[in-house]
């Protein structure tokens, strides 16, 4: 039986397309209007409303909550202050990534953790010896993301303290008569917030935000647009850019944080904090055994256009992400060609006016500007098009982290 999110009764009538898909067993809109690009632009230019309730949400409480999480999450939650959140991952003993999520610190004894897939058993298995309670609170709660340049004005009109909320900070406010947690987080790479509500309060919170957003062109945004936004933002998606090491069969499909471009998370590898996977990651660093580097790539659009135009074809520029990997090579097609990586996500980016991708390349090609060639098909034949490596996120507006 497919489930409805707490916001379904409000959002479903706004879906003019009848297109729904399933996300973690919940009915969610693929797009609300005929034109997903209008939804995408709402987030980049005004504000979009995204129901992210299908995420799994866990509550971790108890005297040892901080110590427990510091030992299972790859990033150190002890550096996170009350009222702050962290994007983090968790690894297995071999230093392979299990999953990613956002941890919210309410206090040293009270955290929330979100993830795309169920992880309760994973954490419970690691919990013996710690005075900690881990509960799945997904069913009791809902989450509504308000993302885009106008998101601050919309939410601050309901709760003025939100105007001061810093990047990756969260606070409890009252919206629509209900107590909600608002965090300055999201999956779009733009200025944006997520509003965490008790399921029962969802309709009244929604109504308040919807009303406040009306004059700001607040637009409901479906999955199709969301998946565009996150690629520009360089945000990883499980089962697109990586797979959980728990459920893969070979090491080819497992990746370390270093290989996923998350070296920045590992600030204290030589410190006294022991966490699951640390020793393997340290070995990988010391031995230089990383197989891949996760990077952004940008296509040479002039060559893309010429390759098609020369063949009498209008250069295709599809903003909908390509659902397959594209091989990356070190030269033109032909003899002696060497494969040097592959894209994990790929699309035409309207704000960047180029085809862009998230990709894994051999570590020697990790430096921005490194040249690769991406395999495409034109007229049912393989061709390659020039691209270069660029630092992710490829779209990173100052407003995302700006204090005002």
């Amino acid at each position: 039986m497919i489930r409805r999110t707490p916001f379904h009764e409000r959002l479903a009538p706004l879906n003019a397309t009848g297109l729904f898909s399933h996300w973690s067993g919940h009915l969610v809109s693929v797009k609300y209007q005929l034109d997903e690009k209008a939804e995408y632009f709402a987030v980049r230019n005004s504000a979009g409303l995204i129901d992210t309730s299908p995420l799994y949400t866990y509550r971790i409480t108890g005297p040892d909550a901080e110590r427990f999480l510091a030992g299972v999450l790859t990033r150190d939650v002890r550096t996170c202050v009350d009222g702050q959140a962290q994007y983090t991952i968790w690894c297995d003993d071999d230093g392979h990534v299990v999953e990613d999520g956002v941890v919210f610190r309410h206090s040293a004894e009270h955290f929330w953790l979100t993830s795309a897939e169920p992880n309760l058993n994973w954490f419970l298995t690691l919990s013996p010896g710690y005075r900690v309670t881990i509960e799945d609170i997904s069913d009791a709660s809902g989450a509504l993301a308000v993302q885009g340049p106008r998101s601050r004005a919309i939410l601050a009109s309901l709760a003025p303290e939100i105007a001061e909320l810093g990047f990756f900070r969260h606070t409890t406010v009252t919206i629509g008569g209900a107590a909600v947690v608002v965090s300055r987080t999201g999956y779009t790479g733009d200025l944006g917030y997520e509003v965490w509500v008790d399921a029962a309060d969802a309709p009244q919170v929604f109504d308040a935000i919807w009303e406040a957003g009306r004059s700001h062109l607040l637009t409901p945004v479906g999955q199709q647009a969301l998946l565009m936004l996150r690629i520009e933002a360089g945000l990883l998606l499980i089962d697109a850019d990586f797979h959980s090491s728990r459920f893969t069969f070979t090491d080819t499909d497992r990746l370390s944080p270093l290989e996923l471009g998350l070296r920045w998370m590992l600030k204290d590898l030589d410190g006294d904090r022991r966490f699951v996977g640390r020793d393997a990651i340290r070995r990988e660093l010391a031995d230089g055994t990383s197989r891949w580097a996760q990077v952004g790539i940008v296509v040479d659009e002039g060559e893309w256009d010429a390759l098609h135009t020369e063949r009498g074809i209008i250069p295709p520029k599809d903003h909908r992400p390509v659902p397959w990997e594209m091989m990356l090579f070190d030269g033109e097609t032909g003899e002696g060609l060497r494969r040097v990586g592959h894209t994990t996500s790929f699309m035409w980016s309207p704000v960047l006016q180029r085809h862009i991708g998230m990709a894994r390349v051999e570590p020697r090609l990790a430096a921005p500007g490194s040249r690769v060639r991406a395999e495409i098909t034109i007229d049912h034949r393989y061709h390659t098009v020039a691209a270069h490596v660029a630092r992710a996120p490829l779209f990173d507006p100052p407003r995302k982290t700006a204090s005002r």
Partner: protein
Amino acid sequence: MTEPTTTPSGPRQYDAIVVGGGHNGLVNGAYLAKAGLRTLILERRHLVGGAAITEELKPGFHFTTFSYALSLLRPDIIHDLDLVRHGYLPLHMATTLAPMEDGDHLLFTQDRGSNIHEVSRHSRKDADAMDQYDHDITQVVMAMKPLFDQVPPNLFSNSPEDALMLADLAKHLKGLPKRVLHNCVRLLTGSAAEFLDDYFETDIIKGLFSSSGIIGSKVGPRSQGSGLVLLFHHMGEQDSVFGKWGFHKGGNGGFTQVLARAATAFGADIVLEAAVTNVITVNGRATGVALADGTEIHAPIVVSALDPRRTFLELVEPRELPADLVESIGRYKFQGTSSKVNFALDGLPQRPGLSGTGSEMRGFINIAPSMDYLERAFDDAKYGWYSERPYIDGCIQSMIDPDMAPTGKHVMSCFVHYTPYHLKGGDWDVERANLGDRVQATLEGFFPGFGDLVLQREVVTPLDIERVVGLSEGNIFAGELFSPQMYFFRPAPGWNQYRTPIEGYYQCGSGTHPGGCVTGGPGRLAAQQILRDRTSAP
């Protein structure tokens, strides 16, 4: 904007001076600076952009005073000049609304399937005719695009280079399929009506589609020549979608600010409120410019981004030019026929049968219920007066970019046709307010209660365009898009390659190929020509 850099040895020396900071001047200056030329762009007004500007005429309300939409901008420019880094952001128009006189409407979205059903409400036959029409036009556009993006050959030169270009052109045309080449000729020489009549039977569709055939031009949909204007407006793309039009963040003034930042980043200096009175020539060679305040600035290359009349008859002494060129420029047709009426609105216009939320008004609102409506509007202009019931291309830009108006309020840009520059027995300074009333009354007819929403109104007649922007007779294309003044002949036979008879003096305005509209093509191609000439010079 920067002041000219002063070095210890005196003011900065320039390799090139661009006269006019309209979009083509900025594009040209940016390309020249990128190539390493010390480049100065001089703009007469207090802001760059020429006819592509956005002004806050009422606090919080941003008006695209003149030019208001983008499509024809040559995509190479975006990448060559790294415009995205400087803020280039084309916004998406989700709808096109064409209200009808009987209360019904035609509403296009970006979904082909629903568009077919929408057209089918009016005519089932026209539904798949629309696909055929789109495909046929697109094929013609594909065939013409290479011509659009290259310096055209000079028919009257004996240079081997031109002979080669002509041979390439002949080869290209020879390679086109029969149907495509014939459609090219039909569009380039015929009327929009003849072409559209072959596909469609419905008034509202023909009204909407033929509007592209008259924009900015003194032709009716049934005039020979409107086919070319129709084709021209299909030559572009917006965010990669062929033939589509869109809106830039902050309006077209937002776009020209992006160009200014790019030009400056490449090292060009832009000086505002610097009116050039004339180009200084010595022995048939340009050596610099003189400003209204008496300053002289010297450079071996001077590029005019102004229209052909100003380029050849005002900035230089006509006697410096061959008489046949002076004659051609004298004959070159401007006859501006378009106006803008821009509104600050207290709320969204309403129309029975629409949702009331504005969801159908996130793009153009095309007031042309039939081809007859347009042709009658043209009739008025033929005899020297403005249309009793004008054609209006409206757009509530604050529905696309919320930053254009205060929260909850709106701005509406209305392109208005036909309003001839030369009024027979009238004067625009007298008629300006009447034109505003007429446009408002027309909108009132389609959106009852419209007048009650109007907080402020700005009426921009062809005379105002000429006075403020400097475009002769207010022609928005810097000269009509008529075949005798296109490609081989834009702006004059033998002078279609951005050069002039005065050595070192070049032209890069919309009056040169492929100008008209915000293409940037003339600025880019002129820069190519200038740089080529520099390397081949002894």
